[in-house]
């Protein structure tokens, strides 16, 4: 045998084995991808799950980018500079307007939200959404000079007219910090609505309005009622709680120069109706709340949509200094709406009180006060008005850009590139898809419309089941979903690919399904979403005494009376760490009045305190109600032997269940 023949003899089995291994590997990986994705698409491959979404290590460095994601804008009083919070870059950007360039990047806390300026232009205050703090920035030295603690999830802020007090809306703790700027300490912590967000000071300096994004607790299967909290700026006490009915997601707020009206952006959900159709505004409509001052002042709602076109996710509102116009950013529609305020007043004056409900639902009214729709870049959020009222600046959050809009011509006359990465990563592409409503019929809603910040809007929906009006489901968070399949309360969906695939298009968005690459990008983005740090956990990770006692109850095997609790009925059995779910279906006696079945997927318990209401249909307004009102048959864990203080301890422990690493 020659050397060549020997090589062939030896190499052939090797080659065959290699091909067989490759074939088997491909077969295995295809099987795995199909099983995980829950569909049989031939073009599924390993990259979306294992490469494009890698956050750490070499792959993370190669495939991920650190974007700026500008959120809110403050304009210097001399009109020469903008200050922009870069939410994903943990920085405050200083922008020189005439050169349209970024002068400086000042590091602040995590996920900065809002920036406000002192009148002398020497100090900025930045709320740090994930740090629970406000950074005081010396704009001369361009550095943080002081940082003071506020509540959890600080968002909107405003200075009082004397600049002695800073009001901060704490979205996580549902309260409002009143911060003494001289001492840097909170004077008061005022109870707010649910998930307070926008803050504005009335032109006379007497009142502070704070919007809320989520509804106050309401009886089961009744419309949301969301609060605008009114604070007396002299006494620093809450004087009114203006209830806005059948609306939520109130984010932006601004006053007319005369202070006779406050405008708030809002969403009017139709969660109590079966989701059988979208046309005609049967899922969501978007509008403005118009609030007259004083306890007896009216609260009107008007829509910004048209009969066949919807403008999703209104975020911010800015009134021109002459009080003639208001600009509203629609984050889900990549668009600004401009309204004529005198025309709007005309509509309000001509509407009898008895007709305000019709006004709030009428899709034809917008033509009477909307004067323009202006297309913007991706995801317009915070608005800033130039002091002379000639320009509106728009933070295009997912374009890393600020657009400059002429108030006269109602056109974009320029933009400022903030210097974010040029490359659009796979996850960023998914982020844009998540926040854009163009994948729903008539662009009626984006994923974000019901999942603000990737979380939940706290509503229960009637998502068409075999009988209309049955099987309503509590909206679930999308944070940290990777590895938590199956999805939905019924566990019907083996993967997010299935959840967001053609069935989603057939029964929810009611238009064309996502193209496969888009679906992959969307899932990649959703899998990248993470919880903010759990505020009930100490920095050291050590449990408080109450949490420690609660943990022992959570893990116990014996009742107070010494009777053994069957393993299947122990908390820890179905809710094991690290995500506190065993991902299995159980009937724990929570079947409700609208349910046709009692079998539900076991939910994860991470950052549970952010996810009210509770149970699969949202019947329980608080964690306590899970057992005190609805689970007192000892099928959802054994609890009837617990004392009140033991139940309190259990809940303290549950609230402290944070994500691995606690998001820090």
């Amino acid at each position, binding site marked *: 045998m020659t050397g060549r023949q020997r090589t062939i003899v030896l190499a052939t089995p090797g080659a065959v084995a290699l091909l067989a291994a490759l074939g088997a590997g491909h077969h295995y990986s295809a099987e795995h991808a199909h099983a995980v994705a829950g569909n049989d698409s031939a073009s599924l491959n390993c990259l979306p799950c294992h490469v494009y979404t890698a956050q750490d290590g070499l792959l993370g460095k190669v495939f991920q980018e650190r974007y700026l994601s500008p959120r809110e804008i403050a304009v210097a009083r001399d009109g020469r500079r903008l200050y922009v919070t870069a939410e994903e870059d943990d920085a405050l950007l200083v922008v020189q307007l005439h050169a349209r360039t970024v002068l400086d990047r000042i590091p602040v806390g995590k996920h900065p939200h809002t920036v406000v300026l002192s009148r002398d232009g020497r100090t900025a205050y930045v709320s740090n959404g994930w740090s629970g703090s406000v950074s005081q920035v010396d704009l001369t030295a361009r550095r943080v000079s002081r940082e003071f603690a506020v509540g959890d999830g600080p968002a909107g802020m405003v200075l009082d007219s004397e600049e002695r007090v800073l009001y901060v809306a704490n979205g996580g703790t549902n309260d409002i910090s009143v911060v003494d700027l001289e001492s840097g300490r909170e004077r008061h912590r005022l109870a707010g609505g649910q998930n307070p967000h926008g803050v504005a000071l009335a032109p006379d300096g007497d009142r502070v309005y704070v919007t809320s994004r989520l509804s106050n607790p309401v009886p089961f*299967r*009744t*419309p949301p009622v969301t609060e605008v909290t009114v604070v007396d700026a002299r006494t620093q006490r809450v004087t009114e709680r203006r209830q806005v009915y*059948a609306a939520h997601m109130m984010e932006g707020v601004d006053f007319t120069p005369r202070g006779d009206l406050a405008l708030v952006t809002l969403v*009017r*959900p*139709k*969660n*109590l*109706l*079966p989701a*059988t*159709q979208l*046309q*005609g*505004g*049967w899922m969501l*409509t978007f509008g403005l709340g118009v609030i007259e001052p004083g306890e007896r002042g009216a609260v009107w709602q008007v*829509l910004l949509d*048209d*009969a*066949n*076109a919807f403008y999703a996710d209104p975020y911010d509102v800015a009134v021109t200094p002459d009080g003639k116009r208001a600009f509203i950013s629609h984050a889900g529609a990549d668009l600004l709406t401009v309204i004529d305020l005198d025309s709007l007043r005309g509509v309000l004056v001509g509407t009898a009180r008895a007709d305000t*409900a*019709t006004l709030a*639902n*009428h*899709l*034809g009214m917008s*033509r009477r006060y909307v004067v323009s729709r202006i297309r913007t870049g991706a995801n317009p959020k915070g608005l800033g008005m130039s002091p002379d009222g000639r320009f509106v600046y728009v933070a295009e959050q997912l374009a890393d850009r600020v657009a400059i809009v002429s108030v006269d011509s109602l056109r974009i006359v320029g933009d400022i590139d903030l210097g974010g990465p040029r490359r659009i990563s796979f996850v960023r592409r998914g982020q844009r898809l998540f926040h854009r409503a163009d994948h729903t*019929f*008539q662009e009626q809603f984006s994923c974000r419309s019901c999942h603000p910040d990737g979380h939940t809007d706290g509503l229960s929906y*009637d*998502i*068409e*089941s*075999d*009988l*209309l*009006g049955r099987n309503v489901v509590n909206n679930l968070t999308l944070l940290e979903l990777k590895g938590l399949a199956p999805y939905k309360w019924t566990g*019907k969906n083996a993967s997010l690919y299935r959840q967001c695939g*053609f*069935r*989603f*298009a*057939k*029964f*929810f968005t*009611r*238009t*064309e*399904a996502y193209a496969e690459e888009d679906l992959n990008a969307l899932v990649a983005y959703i899998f990248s979403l993470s919880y903010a740090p759990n505020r009930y956990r100490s920095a050291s990770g050590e449990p408080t005494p109450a949490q420690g006692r609660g943990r022992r109850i959570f893990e116990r095997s014996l009742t107070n009376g010494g009777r053994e609790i069957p393993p299947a009925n122990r908390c820890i059995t179905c809710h094991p760490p690290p995500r506190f779910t065993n991902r299995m279906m159980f009937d724990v006696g929570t079947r409700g009045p609208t349910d046709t079945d009692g079998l539900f997927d076991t939910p994860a318990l991470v950052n549970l305190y952010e996810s009210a209401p509770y149970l699969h249909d949202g019947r329980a307004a608080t964690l306590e109600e899970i057992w005190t009102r609805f689970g007192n048959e000892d099928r959802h864990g054994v609890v009837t032997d617990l004392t009140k203080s033991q139940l309190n301890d259990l809940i303290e422990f549950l609230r402290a269940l944070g994500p691995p690493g606690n998001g820090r």
Partner: protein
Amino acid sequence: MKRAKGRLLAGVAILAVVAVAAGAVWVASPRAAGAPMLIFTQIRTDDAGWNGGDGPAQWFPDRSRIVAMDADANDGGVRVLTAEFHSARAPMVSPDGRRLLFSGRRHEDDPWQIWEMRLNDGRTRLLTPGPGWYTDPAYLADGRVVLSGRPGAATDAFALYTTAGTGAGLMRITFHLDRDLGSQVLQDGQVLFVSSPADQVNAGARYLVTRPDGTGLRLFYRSADQSRPGGRAWETEDRRVVLVERGGRGSAAGVGGRLVALAEARPLHSRVELSDRVAGSFHSLHPLESGNLLVSYRPAGGRNFSLYEFDPVAQRLEGVLSDDPAYHAVEPVVAAKRARPKTFFSVVDSAVKIGELYCLDANLSSLPPARASRASMGQRLRMRGLDGLLGEVPLAADGSFYIELPADLPVTLETVDDRGQVVRGPSAWLWVRPNERRGCVGCHQDPELAPANRVPNALMGAPVALGLARSKAGGGSRP
């Protein structure tokens, strides 16, 4: 030498294959970009029965033909695309610009049917085998075709059908007794069409939209001044719908018509007339990329409709593109690639023989109560079919109802008081598709009113079966 010869032969063979392939590609290629082809219908001016109005003589003009003309040709010369047909009209180009649908008949005694032509080689195929008469085809987003059909010749009623275009059976998607003609597929995938009562000439016509499976039917536009839709409407790039309206404003039997634009976002209340300043009449139109319109227009006192370019901003005719005194030039289309509309997933399940209808408040209506009833609020809902009463159901305390009814069956609804007197109604004919679930805010309510967010009382219970006493078969597919 032998090896070299072999290589030479192989080379020649490869070249031959490449040449044949290249030739095939050349033959199959659409026309070069930059020279779009205009396609339109020519109707003989000596056809005394055709006047550009409504009625069977207008929908099926004798010896009409479809012709093509290069947009940049100066001589106005046309090429007949349907030379093998006795009559043809209603051209519609596919989104990829390569195929043409039209209605036609090869011989004088044939029924009018739907044909598809490959524009590169002129080959045609029949899409609607069978005895019925068919017209006004349009491509759906998924490649299927929507068309108007009249299965028998005894009636003027036309329903909409869809077909996969493979010679497979037709699926009917509208079920009332009206004439549904002039289909157009909007960018969002909905089918926009003209619907008019079959038993009334030139009255009550309006534009409706439906999803391609016939679900979600609703009013799109109805003229406030009794004008009549003049046929197929078109969508522009700036999301307007442009169309021709005839009659109205005290006009007599008016043929031809006026150019009208609607904002797609609010079609019922955004009508703008584009041809105020132009005397004469318009027959049909097609939007151009430039923002101008290609229009079929006849000057006041003129004999025939010719093709012009029209500037809708200046309201000015820009110039004639085709003018042959022997023919009317109507129904222009441009053979060019355009954006594909969006697709829908159908909820229709043919295994389910019923659909569901629910209403939030049947007493919410813009109609005044009937005089015969002393009540202003109905107590019960009555449903009638073609053959009479199908049943009654009490309204819930909040005015809501939730019923299941036979699918694809035209019915009318009316509210009645406790003495059985009609309070409001009857409604127009409506129907539900198999497995469709449709909700209404009220009965004859303002169509721009979004629903209030509350749980209708009627949805606390099971649906009441009307018109059939059987439960749902098949179960349907739910999320």
